[in-house]
């Protein structure tokens, strides 16, 4: 690797930039000093630990360790997905829906990218599988939560129209067709945007990282193109599966609208970071 290694002093110098935020907070009375310090310390600890864990796992190159880390990543993403939802789902099925679709879409896309597209040896090489899984989970998480939010809020807001429609005798999928389309469109928007601006307005994080780490920009670009296609597949599949599952959770076997089973109390708007 022809990267310039960063020393502890270099990191302290970088951390000095956080003081700018501290000063702004003090001058304008934002009272964010404490939160800023805690968030910064958390970030340092989390990333350092991840660095050590990944180094250890990469050295092992064992399918068991790779699977274990992947499992932890999926679980953490699942918790994040639940916390992002404004309306708490009721019942373990609703909780499980997001996580199951995340696992399905994230797992499939990552396996496809790692084994068929890249084809490292061995196929479970953690150096390839885990970073891809991380990016896939992050993006799928966003599109699933957008799809579910659009669908659930839409059903709640247009409850009267949904009831009127169901009263005329369509099946639940026919009755939800408009909202389903709308939620999938919303879930796809961030992906469309990031593909449209990739390389022009923003240099995607992964590509920037590879270039900083000394990779050939052409190779970095090819990897980024591959990753964006994988992310597209994963978030599309995830949003579709989650939205479809959500329709079944918001209705019952008699195709009635059952928002009573789906929606819980609204969480405070400022509770989320």
């Amino acid at each position, binding site marked *: 690797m022809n990267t310039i290694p960063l020393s502890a002093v270099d990191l302290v110098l970088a951390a000095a930039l956080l003081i700018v935020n501290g000063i702004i907070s003090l001058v304008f009375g934002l009272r964010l000093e404490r939160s800023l310090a805690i968030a910064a310390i958390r970030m340092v600890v989390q990333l350092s630990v991840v660095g050590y864990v990944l180094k250890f796992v990469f050295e092992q190159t064992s399918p068991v360790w790779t699977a274990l880390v992947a499992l932890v990543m999926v679980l953490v993403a699942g918790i994040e997905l639940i916390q992002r939802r404004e309306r708490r789902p009721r019942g373990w099925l609703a909780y499980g829906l997001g996580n199951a679709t995340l696992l399905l879409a994230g797992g499939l896309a990552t396996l496809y990218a790692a084994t068929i597209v890249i084809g490292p040896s061995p196929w479970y090489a953690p150096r390839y599988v885990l970073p891809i899984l991380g990016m896939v989970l992050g993006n799928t998480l966003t599109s699933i939560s957008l799809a579910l939010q659009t669908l659930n809020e839409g059903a709640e807001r*247009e409850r*009267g*129209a*949904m*009831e*009127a*429609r*169901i*009263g*005329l*005798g*369509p*099946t639940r999928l026919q009755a939800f067709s*408009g909202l389903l389309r709308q939620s999938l469109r919303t879930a796809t928007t961030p992906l469309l945007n990031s593909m449209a601006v990739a390389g022009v307005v923003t240099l995607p994080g992964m590509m920037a990282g590879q270039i900083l780490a000394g990779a050939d920009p052409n190779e970095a670009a090819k990897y980024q193109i591959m990753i964006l296609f994988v992310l597209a597949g994963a978030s599309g599949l995830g949003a579709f599966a989650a939205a479809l599952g959500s329709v079944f959770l918001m209705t*019952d*076997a*008699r*195709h*009635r*609208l059952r928002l009573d089973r789906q929606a819980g109390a609204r969480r405070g708007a400022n509770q989320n970071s």
Partner: protein
Amino acid sequence: MLRVDYLAVPGLPTLSFEVATGECLAVEGPSGSGKTRMLRALADLDPADGYVHLDGVERGEIKGPQWRRHVRYASAEPAWWAPTGGEHFPKSARLDRLLSALALDEGHLSRPIAELSTGERQRLGLIRALVDEPRVLLLDEPTSALDTTSAAMVEELIKYQLLAERIVLLVSHDVAQIERLAHARLQLAATTFRRSEGAAA
């Protein structure tokens, strides 16, 4: 024939009654007595224990959507899912007949729903409920927003539905209208209910 046995609508006493083909049953009771809830339960829009038979077929024997194609609930304030009325039903000769029966025309179908008057929306909602000819009509205050002339047209349409061998359950606060249309009455009250056969006061 519509036969209801031990229908347990949450918050209401258990209900049992029959309505013969071609007959209209008026459902009466003060506001909040559960008239709408009962109609919604009959259309299988809300869960309710008990048995509802239409021509010998119990609602659990067929799928929910299929039941609702035969047993149709029409709300007093119909809700809409598309910008214009015309997008809510396919064009047909039957639609044209219903429109002219209620003094509406093509223009009402192409205009945005929000620009129609409350009464026009209510008449369009009734047409939406009738256009695919369901067997049972659960009409929740079908003339609440209508002037006398329009209300008379709706009553004529209801009478025609009865002649065409349909079954009508009618919620109305218009006593005279009930006398004109209903063959029997069902009285709902918060705690008790009683049924009086054709007993016009």
